[in-house]
């Protein structure tokens, strides 16, 4: 082949990073939600609602940031419903999440109808990083992204640090591990879970908005195309760690965007697409043993509602 391998990797990265960015936002949010003990299968619904509301507001106001902010609020609002259902009402987390995904897909379709095929005047522009962006080849390929990409990257160390090196992180992880212990020490378990779930929804909303105001940029019905489910898989694949979420998001973002370019090399794109889901099953299997669970640190109270009365 004529393409040299170095150039290929750079090209792949240039495609994979934007494609992985919505996954990254969603996964970082879901890591926090699941760390608090709540599984949110509504991510797909929150992403698509973020995408449509972000686009709508950006389109109407002409200000892309209003759009992103709205997407975060809308995602957070949907997540609030999930939190109320699972934490306060203690209904089945799986069913509630599925219902919210259905709801999000349905409402976004109706809301977005009038925006189909509309161009977006206000969209995120690549930003110019003095020095880096001017580097030959590399600068052109890797340092010409828009701000949301960089914010996503910066969020990784930030959220990792918050999770492991701060009081907040200790509290959050305790609530997902042993809510009774946290409760006994005066931690408000319900509040922490609400906050984590709503944060997760906001991140999903932003991830969705990135698709519609930057990546596409357009509104297409069902444009998340299952990204929310990959987020669920990635969260587990990343073993609930923001650092691995970055790796996973770019890897599987790359798989999604590069699938058709890899086809001539004899790699089936569809088989590649199975990878995140199969790897997730593998991680679940490995972490099923108590000893392994402790080593890799899967949240022990995931999917378990907590109530003080039921002692």
């Amino acid at each position, binding site marked *: 082949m004529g393409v040299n391998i170095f150039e290929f990797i750079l090209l792949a990265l240039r495609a994979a990073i934007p494609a992985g960015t919505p996954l990254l936002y969603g996964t970082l949010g879901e890591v926090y939600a699941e760390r608090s003990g709540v599984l949110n299968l509504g991510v797909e619904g929150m992403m698509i609602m973020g995408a449509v509301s972000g686009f709508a507001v950006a389109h109407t106001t002409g200000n892309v940031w209003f759009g992103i902010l709205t997407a975060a609020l809308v995602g957070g609002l949907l997540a609030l419903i999930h939190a109320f259902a699972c934490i306060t009402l203690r209904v089945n987390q799986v069913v509630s999440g599925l219902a919210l995904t259905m709801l999000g897909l349905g409402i976004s379709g109706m809301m977005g109808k009038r925006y189909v095929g509309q161009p977006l005047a206000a969209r995120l522009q690549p930003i110019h990083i003095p020095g880096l962006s001017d580097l030959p080849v590399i600068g052109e390929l890797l340092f010409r992204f828009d701000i949301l990409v960089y914010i996503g990257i910066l969020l990784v160390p930030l959220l990792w640090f918050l999770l492991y*090196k*701060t*009081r*907040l992180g*200790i*509290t959050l*992880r*305790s609530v997902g*591990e*042993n809510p*009774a*212990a*946290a409760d*006994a*020490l*005066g*931690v408000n378990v319900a509040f922490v879970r609400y906050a984590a779930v709503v944060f997760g929804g906001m991140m999903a909303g932003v991830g969705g908005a990135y698709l519609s105001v930057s990546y596409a940029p357009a509104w297409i019905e069902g444009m998340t195309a299952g990204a929310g489910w990959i987020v669920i898989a990635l969260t587990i694949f990343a073993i609930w760690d923001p650092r691995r979420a970055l790796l996973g998001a770019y890897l599987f973002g790359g798989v999604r965007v590069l699938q058709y370019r890899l086809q001539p090399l004899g790699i089936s794109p569809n088989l590649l697409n199975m990878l995140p889901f199969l790897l997730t099953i593998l991680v679940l299997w490995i972490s099923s043993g108590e000893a392994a669970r*402790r080593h890799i*640190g899967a949240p*022990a109270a995931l999917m378990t509602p907590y109530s003080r009365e039921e002692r």
Partner: protein
Amino acid sequence: MMPEDGVVVRMKGIVKRFPGVVANAGVDLEVRRGEVHALLGENGAGKTTLMNILYGIYHPDEGEIWVNGKRVTIRSPQDAIRLGIGMIHQQFRLVQTHTVVENIILGLKEAFFFPDRPARRRILELSEHYGMKIDPEARIWQLSAGEQQRVEILKVLYRGANILILDEPTSMLTPAETHDLLRTLRRMAKQGQTVIFITHKLEEVIEVSDRVTVMRQGKVAATLNTSETNPRQLAQLMVGRDVLFRLEKKPIQPGEVVLDVSGLNVLNDKGLPAVCDLALQVRAGQILGVAGVSGNGQRELVEAIAGLRPVVGGRIAVNGRDVTRLLPRARIESGIGFVPGERWMALVPSMSVAENLILKNYVRSPIGRGIWLDRRAIAVYADALINQFAILTPDRHTPLKKLSGGNIQRALLAREMSEKPSLLIVAQPTSGLDVGATETIWQMLLAERERGTAILLISDDLKEVLSLSDRVAVIFEGQIMGEFLAEQADLEQISLMMAGALRLSDANVVGEAA
């Protein structure tokens, strides 16, 4: 201000009622500064309830609490902590995957960033001060039970507690760890901490406490200086001298050995030994009652015999046949009936009375035919049991959970007895039942005895064991401390054995006529 008499905790006339039970019936307690105060009593005597009230988990229905000379209302554990009261529960409340430091600072307003750094120093100081060695960076799951308990104690000390409540702190510990703990408690008292120590073990009271309050049936039996008392007196206070029910029991010549357990070893849920080299025999037409404070291996013993818990050593034989390795179904078929102490593990509350009655025999004719359940046979069978055992229910279709406690237990016993077992294991048969229901259940058990069934009875209620049994064995820490004929029972001896302070040598075992 410290009051003159040095009393830091004063509880006056504490009453706490739960549905159907009065856990504390007017309790007075005084604890002095710098002492180790033991709270002694059998299970259900109300010790833990009293301490949960002091710690703010329960709220008393009546009574007053004074801490450091001030009348206080303690609404939550957080209130208690603010008053300097800390409680270490029997079940540790630790986040397994977190480090020791992370567990200790959880819920505190420490520095937001790197909150563990200043904490680590202080934890090392505390552990040095009280002689409790701990690695602050270790993860909880890597620690032994004794070390985990140290973390719980440090958690409380770190929050500035000077009154420590420990609920049965030695129940999870090895003898060496117990020794370490008791030494630490003495050291803490010497340095001005006040320690309240809930236990049912006499030797620990003698070894570690300055004063002891003995509780019985929700009331205080006595408060004594430990140096002025002895195990014998404490045991008497613990058990009391209640008049025994004398039940009409037909004399029966015991038959062949039905249950023969030898060298039995079983582990508890934590993987620690719960039953140790235990041996016992039950004969046809005989009730063997196992007395003991709960949590001494009774549950593990009966579950092992029923096949619900793996046996790590020893042999269980029923009618001469080794059943040690058989699955639960095969044990049922070999003639074992089982009424567990946790009734709900043997019942399906949401299903009908009839469907609960067939839980054991649904596999066999006439109920089970091929792959089918014979609905007519179920109706006949269920109605017959409902009549025969006078189970009070609107009809056989009523969900079981709608019945009263006594009738639920009657249904459970009826089912197990209708199988005509050669061995019937019955645990806590009357717990939570009223007097009338208790009487009926006892009559049912005696009738079963007359039928020639070997009955193994486990109960926390000593009266029940002594009233029903032909022979009594006392269990302590998974071992039989002694066995004797029920009519020759000596309460004082029994209470000493229950507390692990006396063990009859084999020569002392009262022989059996058969």
